[in-house]
Every structure is written in structure tokens, then in C-alpha cells.
């Protein structure tokens, strides 16, 4: 609760050169690891989702093909969207925990040791 009290900027964040941090190898590695996972994954799930939407929209015959009893291709592909969503979620969490969090935590400790607190604009 107390965290909302105005924090005194004894150590002003300007003392830390964020551009230096930004170009440091550690930070660049963190940035690369994040982007090399989230961007390709975002493309994959969006393409897969829109492929499904377009099939449901324009390929009625194919989607209506019965597979097991009354269960047709459309229903199976729809349920696979659920499966892929759950799968990507678990994959991202495991990736972020292993590959991103340790670097982020190191950088955070370093910066906080240099007195970086909250940004001024959003106090």
C-alpha cells in the first residue's frame, strides 16, 4: 500500500544512461531472445487462425466433411485452435521462465543498485 507514497528521487534516474544500458550486450541479448520468440510465434498463430477463418468462410464443403459420426472437419479444426492456443501458452511460459527471466532479473538488480526507481512521467 505504501508504495504509492511519492518516492524521493535521491538518486535521480538520469544518472543512469539508459542508452548505454540499451546497447549493452546483456540487454541486446534479452531483447533478441524476446523478439525471436514472440514475433515468429505471433505470425504462426495469426496465420493459422486466419487460415481457419477463411476455410470456415469459403470452404464449406471441405469443413462439412464428416470424420467420426456427426463430427466434421470444421469441428476438429476448431478444437485444434483450442489445442494450439493452450500449447503456445505453455511453450511461451516455459521459454520466458528459462531464457528471459534470468537476464531480466540480473539487469533489474544492477539498475536498482544504481538507484533507478519509477519513471518520472508516470508518478
Amino acid at each position, binding site marked *: 500500500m505504501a508504495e504509492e507514497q511519492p518516492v524521493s528521487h535521491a538518486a535521480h534516474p538520469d544518472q543512469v544512461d539508459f542508452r548505454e544500458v540499451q546497447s549493452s550486450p546483456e540487454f541486446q541479448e534479452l531483447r533478441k531472445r524476446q523478439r525471436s520468440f514472440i514475433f515468429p510465434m505471433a505470425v504462426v498463430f495469426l496465420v493459422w487462425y486466419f487460415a481457419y477463418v*477463411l476455410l470456415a468462410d469459403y470452404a464449406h464443403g471441405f469443413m462439412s466433411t464428416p470424420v467420426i459420426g456427426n463430427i*466434421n472437419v470444421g469441428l476438429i479444426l476448431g478444437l485444434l485452435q483450442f489445442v494450439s492456443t493452450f500449447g503456445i501458452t505453455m511453450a511461451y511460459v516455459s521459454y520466458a521462465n528459462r531464457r528471459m527471466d534470468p537476464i531480466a532479473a540480473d539487469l533489474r538488480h544492477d539498475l536498482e543498485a544504481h538507484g533507478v526507481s519509477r519513471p518520472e512521467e508516470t508518478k
Partner: protein
Amino acid sequence: MNSLHISAATEVTAESIKDTGLLNMIIFGVFVAVTLVVVLRASRNNKTAADYYAAGRSFTGPQNGTAIAGDYLSAASFLGIVGAIAVNGYDGFLYSIGFLVAWLVALLLVAEMLRNTGKFTMADVLSFRLKQRPVRIAAAITTLAVCFFYLLAQMAGAGGLVSLLMGIDGKIGQSLVITVVGALMIIYVLIGGMKGTTWVQIIKAFLLIAGAAIMTVWVLALHDFNLSDLLGAAVETTGNPAILDPGLQYGKSDTSKLDFVSLGLALVLGTAALPHVLMRFYTVPTAKEARRSVVWAIWLIGIFYLFTLVLGYGAAALIGSDAITGAPGGVNSAAPLLAFALGGPVLLGLISAVAFATILAVVAGLTITAAASFAHDIYANVIRKGQVDADGEVKVARTTVVVIGIISILGGIGAQGQNVAFLVALAFAVAASANLPTIVYSLYWRKFSTQGALWSMYGGLGSAILLIAFSPVVSGLETSMIPSADFQWFPLNNPGIVSIPLAFFLGWLGTVLDKNTESAIKQAEMEVRSLTGVGAEKAVDH
């Protein structure tokens, strides 16, 4: 089994349900009493702005994830999607897939970085390195617009639900109930702030998912736990094999097919830009908890949508599409009717109370978001230029809650009879056009500028609303909001396919044409903060 279908189908009429109105009201009253006690207890240490807007950032990932599910699984999800599947079959199912897959955008691209850079609202993130005043004003306007559309949908849902439960077809009776829902919502948000609202959402998510689970198992049990048999029964009762195939609702013409692509785009890109969803990420202490929240939300929401698939086809099998569309409340009445067919008046009362609770919890979340945006962005940062203490800001937020409550009551009375899922889809289209491009650009594009943000937000909002105004939703058809007038020229119900790419384009164009460049130091600071979480609000290390 077949005889059971027929007897259930004939029993369920509006007449037989009318008699249970009193029971429904008692069950709903108990819910209101219990949640009010919880809200009162939660409000005891609502002191600062962070307490009021962000629940002191004290919720855990799982708690917040459950609350997100409670916030997100609106009347549209429950009443709208079950009804859409029961009447339009497979096309209704498509809604729920868009609503779910959309969470990956929030998980991968938005949640954690937003938590690390902002404080209370979306505008906090955008104004980090862009110019405060214009960007805050624009973000507050788009936030208020999305909240307004979404509130209308929820309020219309409340009216529809009541017309079914109490057999009230009269406009006055329905309006009265919308007023009661609105008044309760104002009380919750006024007293409880974000903490109280969050607890209402957690309780409601639990009740809703448990209620849907019970009905799902029940429906499956009636069909020997065989999905294929259930689908077969749905075809038999409705006499329409096409209910299992795509195209019943959107396959009629080339225009309606294109409309569906537009809807799909709005659904998948809208979620991560809904202001009330974004605000929930601030109620947890760290970005890691924000990530855990989304993971919990994805599991709960996904499982719930699997239930709605069974419930929708179950309603088609046990009641039939014609009986549903003929009931007061129309399509939205499928879920309550199914509850009555399964468990009689008691289950109907329970499920109706859950549906009421759903509407109440969602409107509370929307209202606190809109109030925070007005008080924090417009009043504190633009009008008073940051020269206001937290007490003054919260006071303004509380006043805003009352004003928004009254506006949404009046709007809800005006929007009666509209399909809720559809109204919500419009809110998604506005969110995806006005908010998402700017959020993504400002987090990931180094050169993104103030002019780009303004062009994208105003262009996205303006084009989405303009296209809706000139679409068949508003005029030109018998089903339009103003059936007597005809000034429509945009053929699609959902503007997303035009307005979303346009907003992305305008964000790019505004940036490359901008003569001013933004501070590279601020950009560096934002990028470092967003990825590392350094100095994020309540920097408690775990």
C-alpha cells in the same frame, strides 16, 4: 432418450418460466447481499489512488487471472455465444475461437511490457515517451468510446435476460431492471474500487464456470457422453443438418462472408486492446505475475468456451432453434431455457443469477476503467497537469463513476433488443482499430512518434465509428437500430477489415511524415524498463 427430448422441449415455454420469477429474484438477491459484504470488507483499506484503481497491486497471478476471466466472460460470452450456437450452429462457435485465440496477442505482445511501463491506464504507456497531453487526451477518448460500446452491450443483455426470466415484455419493466443493475454497479464501484470489483469478478467467474460445467456434464450425460450423439440430436430437433456446418449465419452471400473475415480480425486483435482488460494487468505486483494472470485466464476462458459448445448444441437438441428465437429475449435466452429444461426452476434461478452476476461484474470493471481514464488521464494529468494529490484524483474518479453509471443506464435502455455478442463485436472492432496499433507501435517501434499515435488513434476510432454509423447495423434494414431511416452505404456490419489496417497504416504514415523526432533517451528508458521491469510500480522482487 428421444422421448426425453420431446417432453423437455414441450415443457419449456415462456409461460412455465414466468412463475419462477420470484425464486430467481431471491437467488439473485442472495448473490448481491454476499458480494456487497465482500466489497465492503475489501474497501476497508482503499486509501490511495493505487488502492482505488489497481487494488494496491496486491492480487496474485491466479487471482487476477480468475478476475480477468470474470471480466472477459461477459453476458456476450455466456448468453450470446450459447444462443448463437443454438440458432446458427457452427458459426456461433467461430465467435468463441476468435475470443480465445486473441489472448495470445495479450500474452505474447502486450501484458508484461504494459505492466512494466505503466501505472493505471493505457495512456500511461503511450505517454511514456510521446507527448503527454495530446496522447493522453486521445487515449482517454478511445478508452471511453470502447467502454461505452461494451457497456451498452452488457446493459442490453441485462434487459433481454429479464424479459425472459420474469416474462416482462414491456419496455418499462425492462428499463426498471436495467436501472437496478446500473445502480448496484455504481454502489459496488463507488465503495469497493478495483479491489471490490476484482472480488466480485472472482466470485462471478467461479460461479459462472461452475454453473456451465454442471450443465455441460448434464447435457453430455443425457447423450451418453458422446459428442457425435449430441450433434445428431441437435440436427434431429432443429430439423436442420446445416447447423453442424459453417455458413448458416455468414455464408448467405459474398458480403456476409467478407463480414465474417472482418469480425474475425476484430475479435483476434481487439482483446489485447480492451481498456478494462489492460487495466487488470496493473493489479498484480510484477510482470511475471501479469504473465501468470494471462495463463490462468487463457485456461479458464478456453475451458469455458468448450463448455459453451456443448451448451449451445445442447440447447438446440433439447429445446430447438425455433423455440429459442420465439422466446422473449430471443437468441440470448438459449442458456436460461436450457437450464430450465435440465434442472427446472431451481437450476434456471441459479443460472439466471449467475448471468445477472456476470453482467454486474463486467459493467463494474468497465466503469472503473472509464472512471480511471477520465480522472487519471484527463483530470489529473491534462487539466491539472499532475498538480493534484491522489485524494483529489480519486474523488474525481468517484464522481465519474456516478456519471458513467447514469449514462450507461440510459444507453442500456435505448439498446434493448440488440444481440449482445454482436454489440460486443463492435466494441472489439473499435478497440482493435483505435488502441492496438498504437500500443504495439509504441512498445516495439523505436521511431514511432506522437503524430503517428494521434493519426492512428483518431483515424482508427473515427473510421470505425463512421463505418458503423453508415452500416446496416444503424439503418436501412428492418433489423437496424433505426429501421425507418436508410442512409447506409457501407455493406458490412463490422468495420474491422477496413478500420484496423487503416489505423496501422496511419500510425506508420504519421510517424514517417512527422518532422519532430521523439527523445531517443526516453525511448531507451522505456525499452529497458519494459523488458527488465526495473522500478516498475511496487518493485518487490520475487
